[in-house]
């Protein structure tokens, strides 16, 4: 599953970069993430609960590892989530480019899903990933706006 797009954000790439490295902010960008902590300079661990309609118990153990860090231009996230519902894992590339007074964030995630999510959830996967992406980006935008004002 490929999730990609771009999103305009206020602030410079440097400001956004710092925010994105902050586990509290990262947790907000990944909707449903609870208690994300930085266990190494480039590694975050926590749990993520995704509730879509009647599906209430989708809790994942989440590990995010950052690689190819090119501050403030780009980095790659290795995402690894496992839970009773199966797994999701893959890589997400994030690029930050200044544009005018702000920054354009380009993202492209290539995610695998497995287990019950893959076998039973296909009807909703596309909509859910779009929704989560939108929620995450909106959250990032709010966070930025709050910090910049």
């Amino acid at each position: 599953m490929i999730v990609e797009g771009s999103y305009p954000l206020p602030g410079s790439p440097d400001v956004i970069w710092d925010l994105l490295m902050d586990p509290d902010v990262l947790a907000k960008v990944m909707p449903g993430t609870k208690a994300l902590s930085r266990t190494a300079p480039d590694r975050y661990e926590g749990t993520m609960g995704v509730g879509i309609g009647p599906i209430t118990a989708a809790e994942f153990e989440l590990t995010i590892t950052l690689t190819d860090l090119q501050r403030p231009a780009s980095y790659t996230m290795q995402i690894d989530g496992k839970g009773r519902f199966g797994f999701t894992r893959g890589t997400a590339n994030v690029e930050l480019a200044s544009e005018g007074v702000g920054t354009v964030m380009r993202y492209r995630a290539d995610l695998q899903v497995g287990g019950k999510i893959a076998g039973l959830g296909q009807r909703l996967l596309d909509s859910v990933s779009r929704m989560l992406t939108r929620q995450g980006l909106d959250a990032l935008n709010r966070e930025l706006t709050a910090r910049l004002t």
Partner: protein
Amino acid sequence: MKPPPFEYYRPSSLEGALTLLAEREEAKPLAGGQSLIPAMNFRLAAPAMLVDLNDLGELAGITAAGAGIRIGAMTRHSAVERDRRIAERAPLLWETMPHIAHPQIRNRGTVGGSLAHADPAAELPAVMVAVEATVLLRSTRGERRVPAAEFFTGLFRTALLPGELVTAIEIPPLPPRTGWAFEEFARRHGDYALVGVAVLVTLDGGGRCERARIALLSVGDGPVLATRAMGTLQDSDLDASVIREAAERGARDDIEPPSDIHASEAYRRQLTRVLTRRALTRAVARAREASR
């Protein structure tokens, strides 16, 4: 495929149900259960506590509401499809009912449950948006009335607040000179539709389009009101070319349909184009019939 354990409550009054829902955050209402119980059997849903609404006779039943109609939240689909007053007063809804799943599911599934569940592929949310129904909500804090178009807020999301239940739905009377049509395309009869469309068209005295409502299902996070397509029809003479243009507009500009194993985004746009055209054509013919 056995459900996980839960605490079970079956209150005998609406007040009791609302109190439970207010006091227990983890309480999940159980109406017909035709979506919730499969999810529990797959262990995709594990509610800690179910509040079974099936003893709440006060929430079931169909009554006249002025010239319109009021359907209690716990009214079964099968009761709606068998009620002559629905056929007369809410013909779009009546035409839609046989498309919902299968008789065994309709004997158990409820109108309120379907709305509260807000599945983007469900028929009833789109129909309620098309007919501009009002959703009645109750909690221990009191009652609210929410227009259907505002009730559906996203993917399986509604305007329901914690502790709140859908108690009824009110459908306004069909305006004069109005035609209706429901169309959907499913892989098999009764399956989740790949695309569906519910249409109401009202003519003015001169036979032009006074008002058109087009609500689509399975092409977004919830029911989608095809406002651009509706705009194309507004004040037009509703001839075949306008209908074609509106359908094209709706398929192109009103939706961002998902892709899945049954239908790609492009296929959903094509189905939207064709079904909207066919539904409008039928609805306009009925409106003209009603204007004679």
